[in-house]
């Protein structure tokens, strides 16, 4: 099985006629995803690689079931596009766009919550359930080289590192149940801990690998989740950006990485995660071995 998406998931792309969206469309179709339509206001009636383009989300949702939407519109238009998807009953939103002001992300999160919709991103590459479907640009055109079906759930604050880690797992013989690029912003729709229950409920998932960064409380929240629920899933983490600990207030990498307080340095997060029984890998290439030993019940 997998979480969030599988071979039956239907979705649309809002902003489908943009430069990056056109290649994303091609890749999703090639992967076998059920991409049923796209929206770009003013471009209704056209097609992108055979996918019909509409002016409004409603034109699509009134005709057929739409499970999800990938949003890849300029930052200033994201909030409204998200509201449009949510109010037309779409329950899974993947926001690819970066540089959306935090206040607007909070509004989208609040709106999604009121309507029972789940949000992945913003500032992410989407998600993939290997062999079934991919939603977003994750993995690019050579997606099959990096991602293979299997039993590891992957969550990453970096889109590129989602693929790097999955590729490393694949090379070592570990496929993935679902890999989610959760987004690099300070506020994201779904944190590690919020996705954990889904992986927990998926009988195919046997272990979790996460890519984490300094900044924000999300790793501490995951540590708390693992401790409190005594999760059945061993978790292996990789922490990037250790050098940033010595440079508070400087901005490197994603918007969410800026170190604002004492609790969100790399060192502090590593300690908290280890305390909760999460294994922390020193290098990406060490991950498969740690996963193997955790699956064999050798402890952290």
């Amino acid at each position, binding site marked *: 099985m997998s979480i969030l998406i599988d071979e039956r998931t239907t979705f649309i792309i809002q902003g489908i006629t943009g430069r990056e969206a056109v290649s994303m469309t091609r890749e999703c179709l090639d992967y076998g995803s059920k991409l049923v339509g796209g929206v770009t206001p003013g471009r209704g009636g056209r097609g992108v690689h055979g996918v019909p383009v509409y002016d409004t989300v409603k034109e699509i949702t009134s005709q057929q079931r739409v499970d999800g939407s990938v949003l890849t519109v300029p930052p200033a238009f994201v909030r409204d596009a998200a509201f449009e998807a949510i109010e037309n009953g779409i329950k899974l939103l993947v926001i690819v766009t970066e*540089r959306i002001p935090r206040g607007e992300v909070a509004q989208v999160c609040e709106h999604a919550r009121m309507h029972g919709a789940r949000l992945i991103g913003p500032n992410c590459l989407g998600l993939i359930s290997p062999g079934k479907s991919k939603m977003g640009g994750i993995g690019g055109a050579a997606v099959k080289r990096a991602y293979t079906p299997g039993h590891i759930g992957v969550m990453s604050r970096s889109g590129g590192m989602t693929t790097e880690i999955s590729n490393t797992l694949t090379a070592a013989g570990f496929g993935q149940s679902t890999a989610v690029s959760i987004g690099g912003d300070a506020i994201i729709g779904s944190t590690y801990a919020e996705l954990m229950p889904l992986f927990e409920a998926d009988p195919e998932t046997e272990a979790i690998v996460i890519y984490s960064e300094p900044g924000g409380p999300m790793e501490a929240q995951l540590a708390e989740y693992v401790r409190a629920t005594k999760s059945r899933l061993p978790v292996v983490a990789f922490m990037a950006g250790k050098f940033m600990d010595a440079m508070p207030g400087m901005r490197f*990498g994603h918007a969410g990485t800026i170190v604002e307080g004492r609790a969100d340095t790399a060192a502090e997060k590593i300690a908290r995660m280890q305390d909760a029984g999460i294994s922390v890998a020193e290098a990406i290439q060490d991950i498969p071995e740690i996963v193997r030993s955790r699956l064999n019940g050798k402890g952290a």
Partner: protein
Amino acid sequence: MRFYEFEAKTLLGMSGVPVSKGGTALTADDAARIAGEVGGDVVLKSQVLSGGRMKAGGIKFASAAEEARTAAEQILALEIGGQRPRCVLVESKQPVKKEYYAGVIYDALAKLPVAIFSDLGGIDIEQVAETHPGHVARVHFSTFSPFPEFKMKELVASLGISGGELNALTRIMSQLAQAFLRYGLTLAEINPLAQLDDGSIIALDSHLDMEEEARDGQAALLARLGIGREETRLARPPTPFEIRGAEVDASDHRGVAGRVVEFDGTLGCVIGAGGGSLTIFDAIRKFGGDPANYCEIGGNPSVKKAAELTKLILSKPGVGKICVIMNVVSNTRVDIVARGVVKGVIEAGYDPAEKIAIFRIPGSWEDEGFKILEKYGVEYCDRSVPMSEAARRAVEKMRKAKGEPEVVA
């Protein structure tokens, strides 16, 4: 981006929060004049973007214009945390009876703004929360209007405050929270928020932060405050090298090749993307390398942009070699980056085989990319070589070039 205290107070004033009478001065003469206009006792405050001003001697009191002149002279000459003051803020000194704390931030887990109030103002709120948790109250509120003023009332009242004080504090909390939403702030603090002898309430100091992402939408406010694009307001001002990096990035809308941060080492880094750069930078340091810069490339930059970034890095004094490393790429094209760095090296007058310590970017269009590197004799590797191993090889090559002995990490 952090606002100076005087800017924060302008913004608070615009939002209806009472602030002291006064003005900013660039010279001691101006400070004396303002002190005269304000009349009575004044406080002079160094305008730097850092805390600990009182301890550093950046805040002084004066009771006459002449005294103010002397104090301003000292403050304007004083560097705090490596920063020269932008100006000195001269305000009338207030007779304070009690100090509160008022703050608003985003709670990344609740995904909502949270208002924080304490009746122990004037000290670091994190410290108060640790030592006197009963004196700190919090409430989340919705990002949608109409603004729930009653929540601010409940927040203040939860610390046992009532009467006219409750109403005045509720009003200020509401004004602060609404300014936070309206101006795209990520931190809005008034500390201390003071109750004066006459019972009125006034903001004595304030720390406001706006994130990069909000700047476009807040252009009117920033123009009004006179804050230009070039003012990044990070922990330290940008170096000329970093400014040129930003220019390279802005020169062409295709992809990212910038976010350059200068370090003082000798190994130039052409690295990406967001998470990949952090991972590679850690690896270089772990193996004892001394990076000359941090940067991020991604989103498929043009050949020209990658070449310009490469030239910029090579132009930095002391840079011996560059390493070109990224995670497995899907959107960015390996061949385009390969062309860019090779071109940059050649245009800078060097031999790519010698200057590029290693090229490790696997992913889309890698076959074409590797052909280019082959032709120019550049050492490259594919996805079977981990990012950190590529970093190790680059560091090793630098060491050999400098004639230093090999280190086993």
